[in-house]
């Protein structure tokens, strides 16, 4: 049995502490936004989770290419880990965004480019896991997963630019007003501290979860091999 690396245990603890500090900074330390009030505080975690989710999706597309070239299952496990963690983070981003949008835009949801792309991206990666679930052979599962993650990873940004471009040309669609009216604001120094600390925190949490998930994948792989050995 492979024991848990000490660095990973330390990273777990650090992640929890950082999350605690970041929560304090976002909820107590940062000043209350004048117009929107306390609901603006979800912003810090909203951006934190969104940034790490996008980082994970980009990593996953890179792992796709590496896997398809090298055909080493290690890269497949990295890819699954990145997508799984990112999928959850992105879901949190959407939920936090909706909580903010209800008082700020007076609606839980609008079909704005970012929101639409977020929804489509979530659906792409849910489909990714449904595809993987239907395949038993690990090599084939890895190949199909890599191909789909690559196609999805290319399509998601095109969706974003497509919606944004068209709506710039046809500004009648919802959300065509300027940034200030949509709930934009400028950050004070204290807000910036909370903001960048949240970014840092979620990056560390992402690395920690990513690492844990890769380790889990490695152990699953080992279990599979042991099972094969027993049956043979």
């Amino acid at each position: 049995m492979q024991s848990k690396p000490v660095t990973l245990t330390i990273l777990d603890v650090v992640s929890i502490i950082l999350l605690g500090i970041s929560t304090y900074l976002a909820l107590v330390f940062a000043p209350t936004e004048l117009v929107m009030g306390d609901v603006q505080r979800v912003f810090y975690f909203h951006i934190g989770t969104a940034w790490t989710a996008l980082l994970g999706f980009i990593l996953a597309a890179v792992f796709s290419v590496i896997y398809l070239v090298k055909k080493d299952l290690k890269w497949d496990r990295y890819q699954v880990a990145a997508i799984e963690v990112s999928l959850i983070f992105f879901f949190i981003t959407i939920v936090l965004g909706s909580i903010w949008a209800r008082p700020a835009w007076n609606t839980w949801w609008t079909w704005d480019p970012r929101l639409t792309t977020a929804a489509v991206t979530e659906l792409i990666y849910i489909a990714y896991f449904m595809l993987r679930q239907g395949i038993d052979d690990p090599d084939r599962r890895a190949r199909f997963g890599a191909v789909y993650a690559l196609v999805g990873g290319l399509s998601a940004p095109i969706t974003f630019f497509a919606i944004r471009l068209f709506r710039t040309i046809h500004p009648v669609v919802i959300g065509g007003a300027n940034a200030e009216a949509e709930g934009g604001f400028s950050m004070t120094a204290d807000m910036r501290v909370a903001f960048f600390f949240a970014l840092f925190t979620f990056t560390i949490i992402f690395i920690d979860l990513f690492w844990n998930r890769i380790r889990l994948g490695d152990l699953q792989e080992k279990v599979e091999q042991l099972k094969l050995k027993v049956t043979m």
Partner: protein
Amino acid sequence: MANGQPNAQPPSGNFIKAVSAVVWKDLQAEFRSRELFSAMLVFSLLIILIFNFALELDVETRRSVTSGVLWATFAFAGTLGLNRSMAIEKDRGCLDGLLLAPVDRSAIYFGKVISNLAFMLIVEIIVLPVYSVLYNINLFQPGLLMVILLGSIGYVGVGTLLSTMSVQTRTRDILLPILLFPVVVPVLLAAVKASNGFLEGLELSEFLLPINLLIAYDIIFIAVAFMVFDNVVEE
């Protein structure tokens, strides 16, 4: 081996010959059975019928939703065709036969894309006049036909790659639309915008962007599918 293929062993260097052999085989099999075509066509007409009830397509609504209804119809009917066309290969072991042929694997991809595209275009060519007659709207405009062609190329290009994967899974009957729809959102989006532009008689410059996007999408995704197709048929 696949039925109706005139030349069972095309020389490995002859790419075009291999592609046309695959296309020919598919078309001939389809002309004999007509099961794919009739299913897609009847399904398309049913979807239009459902939209008619669901949206109360009166004159005012029709103007704004025609391109949306058309593309939703094509997208749904398209999945039916894509799924069936690959499932036939898988069921009767034809895919293995095709893979054994001493040709480049991408020739199989392009062959399937062209035959799938042909089925889709034939269905579209029949749906358009039917829709025109039912709703008294002229859909035979060269611009609109070009958009339909470009949109169908992108849709089928990605769809052929994904249906090749989905038929090899346990959940093959339900998986294709789930895999395909989120990925072809840009195609549907751009195609609806561009079709609307032509139907409303706008200046070309106002909807040139979606047309460019369609062309870019077609090129990017067919190139990607061409590069990765080996990986989805490898045994």
